[in-house]
């Protein structure tokens, strides 16, 4: 009988098997071979065999590597060290074979041959190497023009949807914004100095194909301010085509019921459109996002620990975003400034904003921005909330002093 019956079982079935992957790598790598063995043991014991990672890294960088050690290095010497290296992916996760080949060569030489394409945050994750290899790996990838991503209390590697490179809905240049945020803030990315991690994700429209609203402290979502463009001829084609019941699948599903359709002509009350994308998604040939494009900026998404999970919420209902994105940078820096000033250790910016009160937070950021060059006006706005407060515990700033 096999030493790894459970791993073997997971090589079966139609879905691509991670076990096959590890075994493919195992052809050249003792690390990958011991990974299978330790995994089999975890499956048997029903628990992890990894120890809390120590501080390992690359000279001059405080981030980009996650340390990991097995709990029984004698039995499993191949994974005695099993650190991961986070390499900055390109915007939109696009590659050509030449570039990707560079990484593969280095990793076959210096690591386990296993990767995560990609990590949850977006990095190209190289999975499993030793402390000694870390610096050489860095040197090698640097030579080829690659760099490390974030980890710890720093800016994490920004990521985005493919946006304008392939998608008709993109209202902003997601790829350019992502690269600019990454490359302009190299120090913040590589040398942790924030109260806690800070993630940026950029989606070209509110379909949010990069899950920015759930997974990034700063969520940048493309949108438009003017009217949805309607091509009535194409509407007619859809009606003729019969593939879609426009009334049922589009008009009735509009969240604000702001579409009027008489069976041939479509009209939209754009003042009541919330830019949800549904009608445009369904009638992609007939409807198009408006031309006055920009982004809605949202703040504060995070996983549950400590104060409970949060989705990002609107902080700027609309702003233009054009190269070199000076206004965005000013905004980001103002946000960091306010958070840095009063954020507690391990307090995400969303939790911080909640503790401070969103109105006060917005005011503080607004004060930072007042000195800026881009003239961004940041004040409390109704689109930041679903509805005004229900609670009468209002901290009025001003009160009049006694007369005389």
């Amino acid at each position, binding site marked *: 009988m096999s030493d790894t019956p459970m791993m073997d*079982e997971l090589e079966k*079935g139609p879905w691509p098997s*991670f076990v096959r992957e590890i075994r493919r790598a195992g052809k050249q790598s003792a690390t990958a071979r011991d990974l299978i063995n330790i995994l089999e043991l975890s499956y048997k014991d029903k628990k992890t065999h990894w120890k809390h990672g120590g501080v390992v890294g690359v000279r001059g960088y405080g981030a980009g590597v996650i340390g*990991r050690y097995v709990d029984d290095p004698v039995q499993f010497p191949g994974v005695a060290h099993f650190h991961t290296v986070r390499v900055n992916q390109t915007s939109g996760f696009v*590659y050509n074979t030449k570039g990707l080949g560079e990484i593969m060569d280095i990793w076959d030489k210096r690591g386990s041959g296993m990767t995560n394409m990609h990590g949850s945050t977006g990095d190209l994750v190289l999975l499993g190497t030793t402390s000694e290899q870390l610096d050489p790996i860095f040197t090698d990838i640097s030579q080829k023009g690659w760099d490390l991503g974030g980890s710890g209390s720093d800016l994490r590697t920004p990521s985005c949807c493919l946006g304008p490179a392939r998608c008709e809905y993109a209202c902003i240049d997601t790829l350019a914004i992502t690269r600019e945020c990454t490359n302009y803030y190299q120090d913040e990315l590589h040398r942790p100095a924030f109260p806690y991690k800070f993630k940026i994700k950029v989606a070209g429209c509110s379909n949010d*194909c990069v899950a920015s609203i759930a997974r990034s402290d700063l969520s940048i979502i493309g949108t438009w301010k003017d009217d949805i463009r309607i091509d009535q001829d194409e509407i007619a084609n859809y009606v003729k085509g019969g593939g879609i019941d426009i009334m049922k699948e589009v008009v009735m599903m509009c969240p604000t019921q702001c579409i009027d359709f008489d069976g041939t002509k479509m009209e939209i009350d754009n003042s009541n459109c919330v830019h949800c994308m549904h009608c445009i998604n369904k009638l992609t040939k007939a409807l198009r996002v408006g031309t006055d494009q920009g982004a809605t900026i949202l703040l504060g998404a995070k996983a549950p620990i400590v104060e409970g999970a949060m989705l990002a919420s609107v902080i700027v209902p609309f702003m233009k975003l054009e190269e070199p994105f000076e206004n965005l940078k000013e905004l980001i820096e103002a946000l960091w400034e306010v958070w840095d000033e009063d954020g507690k250790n391990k307090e995400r910016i969303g939790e911080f904003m909640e503790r401070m009160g969103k109105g006060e937070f917005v005011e503080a950021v607004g004060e930072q921005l007042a000195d800026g060059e881009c003239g961004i006006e940041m004040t409390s706005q109704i689109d930041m909330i679903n509805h005004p407060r229900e609670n009468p515990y209002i901290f009025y700033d001003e009160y009049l002093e006694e007369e005389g």
Partner: protein
Amino acid sequence: MAEERITDQGAKDYKEFLHPVMVKNYGQWKYHEILKPGVLVHVADSGDKIYSVRVASPRLLSTVSIRFFMSVADKYCDGFLRWTTRNNVEFLTDKEENVELIIKAVNDDGWPVGGTGRTASNVVHTQGWVHCHTSATDASGIVKSLMDEVFEDFTSENLPGKLKLALACCLNMCGAVHASDISILGIHRRPPKVDYHLLGQICEIPTTIAACPTGAIRQDIVDGVKAMKIIEDQCMFCGACYTACPNMPLADALNDGVSIWVGGKIANARSKPGFTKLVVPFLPNNPPRWPEVIDAVKKIIQVYKDNGRKWERLGEMIDRIGWAKFFKLTGFAFTKYHIDDYKLATKSYNMSAHVRF
């Protein structure tokens, strides 16, 4: 002594890595069509077209397989390929005739094509026992077991709308678990077992105490040395203390397992984005194939198939039919664990006489 060291170059320029047709028509796309599951064509204002073939991936990829993908890209895509935000691989070509060739090539090496339109997505997931020290379950094994079973829903458009799946192996939730259609979440159920002897030496006590969301950790003195103790009935097993302090492991083979959550969503399409909600508070870890977990997820998908209206996401369907009916249809038990008791709990109470019988 300072050697010439290149640092802080940042991300590579994506422009090098875009197919020429995408460079030419950048920002000038007009519409797209799903030609069949896994195959998209995007048409530009110029009339140019780019075809995408989406290939499933377990995310955990060997360089061997990546080199295989590269060979396909070299053959049919002028060397261009990409990954999606859900870890699938996409082959990009302007030549329609290459589409079937790509599909054949990848299929021959065991890679299915699908995942577009009204299908079950690939599963956003995390490290589990493959790499992480805090995991309450494995990630890759459950994902594999699940996708083997719902395979048809990935390769064919069987569903009312998109079905986004996610898994995280602990409450840190390194994924989109709090906002997916169906989420699987690894969960501990025992307070950490404090290793008193090592405590003072390895951990910063105040930081650890501060890490606990419920204030369950108190300063203590053991054998005259500063230590910590856990007020067990205030602990809800989140593991935040363990992240801060290695001497408070939670892993426990008997008590670790998996919970199942549904109805979250990220896209703004129609309804606002929303959190997932608990449906199954606990299922045991049962490797290698976690049959209880897979069964539960399949039940949910079946209810979605039977009751969802076209384009309606799972959570939107439940809002329409009511949670009571959803529990009835799936057959899951409703327990006190389903009633939120954290700080925003009251907002989830039914503050109305709206009741279904």
